């Protein structure tokens, strides 16, 4: 489903010169996989995910989703691809002036979901994420872990084929880890695929997926999850 072929990504420095955020990264994510990319801050995890979502373009190599290079997609086709993805970005944006429920229904309605169905899907997603009691609260009233779960719920409410989640947990809290892992595994059981990036190494065994170690922009040899 997702394939990285010899991908490198370079960014310019403000004072001149370039920094290599990713260096010759190659790996594959098959349908139904749960792949967890683990690494410290600055390892290149966010850059890796942004190459999948089309927010960045590789400097070398290719990132393919369903056999099509993301960087070659027109704006219209990229939008079409993103409708099949559930994206949790870091930092994630929330609509602070809207309620928790409206943060989900606004997106669903903009994607063409009917009013009633959008409310139902939002209620289900919030319930699954343990946020039903906060449905009328504003994002500013949520704790950091609750905000991350809200971002995840919004991504999953669109029923994506591929979940691309950057830092879905804020810290190694067992309850948070279990809640997030439950959501991701449920989405995969429903026919999806998950590519997750995290600086919290405990998330990988909890998700029971493939673990990829990223350090200094380079992928270490694969280690099994758990």
């Amino acid at each position: 489903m997702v394939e990285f072929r010899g991908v490198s990504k370079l960014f310019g420095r403000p004072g001149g010169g370039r920094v290599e955020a990713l260096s010759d990264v190659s790996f594959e994510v098959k349908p139904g996989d749960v792949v967890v990319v683990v690494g410290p801050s600055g390892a290149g995890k966010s850059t890796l995910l942004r190459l999948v979502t089309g927010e960045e373009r590789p400097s070398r190599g290719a990132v393919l989703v369903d056999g099509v290079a993301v960087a070659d997609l027109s704006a219209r086709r990229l939008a079409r691809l993103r409708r099949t993805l559930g994206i949790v970005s870091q930092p994630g944006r929330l609509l602070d002036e809207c309620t928790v429920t409206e943060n989900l229904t606004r997106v669903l309605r903009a994607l063409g979901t009917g009013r009633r169905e959008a409310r139902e899907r939002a209620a289900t997603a919030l319930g699954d994420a343990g946020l039903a009691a906060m449905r009328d609260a504003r994002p500013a009233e949520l704790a950091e872990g609750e905000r991350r779960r809200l971002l995840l719920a919004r991504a999953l409410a669109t029923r994506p084929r591929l979940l691309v989640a950057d830092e879905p947990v804020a810290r190694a809290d067992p309850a948070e880890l279990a809640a997030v892992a439950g959501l991701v595994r449920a989405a995969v059981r429903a026919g999806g695929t998950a590519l997750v990036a995290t600086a919290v190494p405990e998330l990988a065994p909890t998700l029971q997926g493939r673990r990829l170690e990223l350090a200094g922009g380079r992928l270490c040899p694969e280690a099994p999850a758990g």
Partner: protein
Amino acid sequence: MAALVGGATLAGERALSAAVAGWRADLRLVAVLREAGGRRDPPEATLAAARALRGVAGVRYVSAELALAELRGVLGPRAEAIGRLPSNPVPARLEITPAADLDAAGLAALQQALARLPRVDEVQAAIGWVEPAERVARGLRQGGLALAALLAVIGLAAAIGAVARARRAGEDETAILRLAGVGETRLAVPLVLGAVGLTTLGTLLGLGALLLASQGGPAAAGPWLRAVFGLGPLPLLPLRTLAMLLAGGVGLGFLAALGGGRP
């Protein structure tokens, strides 16, 4: 404001044109004829030459006898004194009707050309008002439309600013929706609708004010216009012109969305 000023300019121009056309309908150049060897017969050669001049719509020959009879008619009871004169003092003349579209320079040229015709003694023409009237009409059109254009540019700049502010205020939501796969066209719709709505509303207000100040508007508007501007109600513009002004306002909205919608 642009619609109001532009519309008022066009309406004012129509009013002035109608007034000038009315005055021009009565405008005549009078070529006073001199007798040639005591002959009082119609000067066929002069008539033909006058008819052939550029800018002549019609020529009427008034014989000395007919001119005297017309003078008697004008003087009324006082015409008795003319009968005691030894001879007819009133000369024959040609009354030339100039073409309606002949401008001030053309009228002056026609006057000079008539003066050069055989048997023409002098040419009387009350045309001194035409050139100033043309200047006023030109100034009204150019000044009014220039002011309307300036107001349109100012309006456009204000609308672009409003759209840019709306875009910045909605940046978070736009980024979220873009990442969720909402297409650029769908993302642009609220901004476009907002911009078009803003400029259309402004144009409708301007056109509303224009209609209030036009013939067919409320009766109370007439005295107010005279008191404030010294003018009567403006002629009502044709529906097509009003529609064009409205379309211009709507078009400004699209331009504003284009200008203010880009990050």
